[in-house]
């Protein structure tokens, strides 16, 4: 028995959902969806849960993560209820539900809060730099130090507990009985999906979207590796040097294409951009570009006289690592692949 909560749609609208109530249950969205199948029938079911406000059903659902937003459902919806955008909003909603700090929800729901957070961090970086008398060497040193600390800290304090909470909501609470061995057997599922996002290939739309996304993910992860572990800004190896340049170019080029797409709104998935979508692409773009320019300034030997450039890069980096990665859209990288993992576990428990 589930209790209906009509106030939920209002809540969901603050995450970006459109006119969900317009739905008259025709089911076209599910019929056209190329990823929906008998075991995981969506998006209609999620639309219905949202209209009825069945929060516990939504919290235990993996469907929002199994949707890769080709937009066919929104394009064919006779009521223009934007089911695709609803699935997107549910992903934001679930991200907030998984997040133990509650900050995700605050940032998703309020643009002002997000801007304040970005500004505060920028002030923090500049204040810190002033403390260091804007000494390039110190700043570069602490910058590198921060990167390593942020990766470990954010993962251990925020992301790991949140993944545990996700597991709790979708596996433990709904009492899905999963044999321990299944966790190991299915592990490859997690890795494959994390690094390939191959499920996107199931979408009927153009597969360039998958390809662009794939090289962006690879470019991003390898730049992260190159800067943090190969210390790109201080390297002497010409291989590492060039590698870093290539990776940063990939990042700002692909994100530039994504930004143009969001401005032009030609595809269904770029029609509606939530502030969190904009933050994600812009900051990734700025990260790539600023890293590229900083390294260029180092190579041209003009960074010491133009330390402002590094300050920009550091600000973008800190905002990225402390807002977007733990509480923003970055998390979809983890939740999507873990959703595939948990889905596999559920299917093993059923059989």
């Amino acid at each position, binding site marked *: *028995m*589930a*209790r*209906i909560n*009509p106030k939920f*749609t209002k809540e969901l609208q603050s995450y970006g959902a459109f*006119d969900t*109530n*317009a*739905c*008259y*249950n025709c089911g076209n969205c599910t019929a056209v969806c190329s990823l929906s199948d008998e075991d995981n029938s969506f998006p209609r*079911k999620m639309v*219905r*849960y949202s*209209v*009825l406000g*069945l929060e516990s059903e939504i919290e235990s659902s993996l469907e929002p993560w199994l949707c890769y937003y080709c937009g066919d459902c929104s394009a064919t919806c006779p009521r223009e209820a934007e089911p695709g955008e609803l699935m997107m909003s549910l992903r934001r909603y679930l991200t907030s539900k998984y997040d133990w700090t509650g900050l995700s929800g605050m940032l998703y729901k309020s643009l002002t809060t997000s801007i304040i957070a970005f500004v505060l961090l920028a002030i923090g970086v500049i204040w810190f730099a002033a403390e260091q008398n804007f000494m390039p060497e110190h700043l570069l040193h602490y910058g590198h130090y921060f990167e390593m600390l942020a990766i470990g800290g954010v993962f251990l304090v925020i992301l790991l507990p949140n993944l545990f909470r996700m597991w709790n909501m979708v596996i433990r609470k709904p009492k899905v009985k999963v044999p321990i061995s299944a966790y190991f057997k299915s592990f490859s599922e997690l890795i494959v999906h994390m690094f390939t996002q191959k499920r996107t290939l199931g979408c009927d739309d153009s597969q360039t979207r998958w390809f662009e996304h794939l090289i962006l993910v690879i470019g991003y992860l390898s730049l992260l590796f190159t800067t943090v572990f190969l210390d790109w800004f201080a390297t002497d190896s010409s291989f590492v040097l060039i590698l870093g340049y290539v990776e940063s170019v990939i990042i700002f080029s692909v994100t530039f294409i994504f930004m143009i797409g969001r401005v032009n709104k030609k595809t269904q998935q770029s029609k509606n951009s939530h502030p969190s979508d904009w933050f994600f692409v812009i900051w990734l773009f700025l990260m790539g570009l600023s890293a590229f320019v900083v390294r260029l300034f180092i190579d041209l030997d003009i960074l010491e006289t133009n330390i402002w450039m590094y300050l920009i890069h550091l600000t973008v980096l800190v905002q990225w690592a402390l807002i977007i990665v733990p509480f923003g859209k970055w998390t979809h990288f983890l939740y999507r692949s873990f959703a595939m993992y948990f889905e596999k576990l559920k299917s093993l428990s059923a059989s």
Partner: protein
Amino acid sequence: MKKKIGVYVCHCGGNISDYVDVEKVREEIEKDEGVFLAKTTMFACADSNQKDMVTDIAEKQLDGAVVASCSPKLHLLTFSAVAERAGLNKYNYIHANIREQASWAHSDDKVGATEKAIQIVKAAVAKVKRSNALEPIRVEATNAVAVVGAGVAGLRSAIELAESGSQVYLIEREFFVGGRVAQWDDLFVSNETGKELITRLYDKAMNHKNITLFTGAEIVENSGSVGNISLKVKVSPRHMKLNCDEGNLEKAIEVCPVEVPDKFNFNITTRKAIYHNFPGEYPQLPVIDMEHCTRCGECEKVCKNVDFSQQEEFLNIKVGSVLLATGYDPYEPKNDEFGYKTIDNVVTLPQFKRLVHYCDDKLVYKGKEVKNIAYIYCVGSRQVDGENKYCSRYCCTATIHAAITAKKKYKEIYNFHFNRGIRTYGKQEVLYDESSRMGDIYLQSFEDHPPVVSKVGDKTMVTIKDILTADKTLEVEADLVVLVTGMVPRQDNSIGSLLKVPKGRDNFFNEIHMKLRPVETVIDGVTIAGASQGPKNIMESMNSSLAAATKSFSLIAAGELALSPTIAKIDADNCEWCGKCDDACPFSALTKTDVNGKQVAVVNEAVCKGCGMCMPVCPSNAIELIGYTDDQIESMIDALVSTH
């Protein structure tokens, strides 16, 4: 006996001639002594043949005609008309069906089919030899109509009839006009209120000299037949000479010690024994409800126009036609049907609409504020076990309209529609759209799993196995449960019984033909309009009331009626009144009359339909059916069984 009969045998392309040897039929028929000419024709119904027939009949002075072709259902009227054009009385034309009854039925036996065709045509010839020219029975018609019921349908019909030139007696059983529509506020689509519609119609009706309105009036006796119907009308007194002077009415109502449930508000409020349903109601003259009045005299002290001496009156009126627009009753749920009368916050849709009318800034029922409203659809309609199998048509739209009204009028209202499929047909679909976009929640179940209303502690819960959510069981905590009750026929069907108007399986008044004759009844001169015939919304009621008005008017407009002459005829010499014919007659067309000191049956020509039910029950064989006399039918049987 006629001696100049023309017979035409049709090939019907090959439909007949492929199996029946039409030439042989013609030859055989030609031998009959009464037959003057016999012809075959490729298509009897073709224009050229019709012209030839007219020429033959006129030039050769034929005294009877037979066409042997298809079913009379198809072309009897065609050839009757041919006969009339040629100057031959149409009752001297007889139709023989040798297609459905011979060629098509016996396509495997050509010889047999031909034999049968010959016998059929011979029978037709035998009949036409004995047929007589008949003229329609003409009855004088009174150009006046009694319209029963002064709701929206009755008022509209009355105006239409009056404007066409008929005298109209508008007879309303209640003391106020407007019927159900007066009970509603805003209406979809026009956003006018029911009261506004009624005001417009009432003003127009009252300004027309041809309309006489009787309120508190009922027809108690009826005699005569179409064109000449005598009605006895009982008019109950209001016990008020005039309206009270300014302000005194309110005082009179205030001092009245009697309080009874107010039927106008479906018993959610009470009224006094001296009352009007709402200020400004028509006619603007209050009433004293003598059933409950204690005659304490308090009202007389403040209002000098109270008059307890008024008496019932009986009036006799004469009309040509009666138009019934008696409306409907809302379905009254059974005890405990979805918690009705057993759970304190369960009301019907009409009650809810009146509740919304009376609550201004907060929706309050029985002292508690209402936020969550659960509407349960199809209560008393589309019943699986009960008798009301029909859909009441108006309720989906009315409910959604009421839900939207409540949501707009009060803050934080949540509507939950427990339905069995929404039927906001036609233009009304926009309401469904509006309501769902406003956030109303629709939950649906099949008839075998209706929602359940139950009391859990002090809370009222409505649960449903929602087919829109994969049969998940869902529940809503409802502050108010509204049972969407459909339309049922008026509980008091005395007018229907009095006029013998047949009822359909749904117990509403029944039309002759649902599609082709939708406002006439088998009782000549009685037409039906509005929801008395079955569930209708206001628009549909208007359509049917205009149709019924036109139909009633067309019956009587010419001042006389031409009725079919093929009716029963009593041989007074043979008749010894036994009453058996009267018992058998479905139309009460026979009456016992004294003729030269003898009690015999007499046929009311305007009422008899010529159905023949009386003939076989007559022990003295004193009844003949004109156009189907014993002599004619026996001669046909002889022809059919004769060998040649």
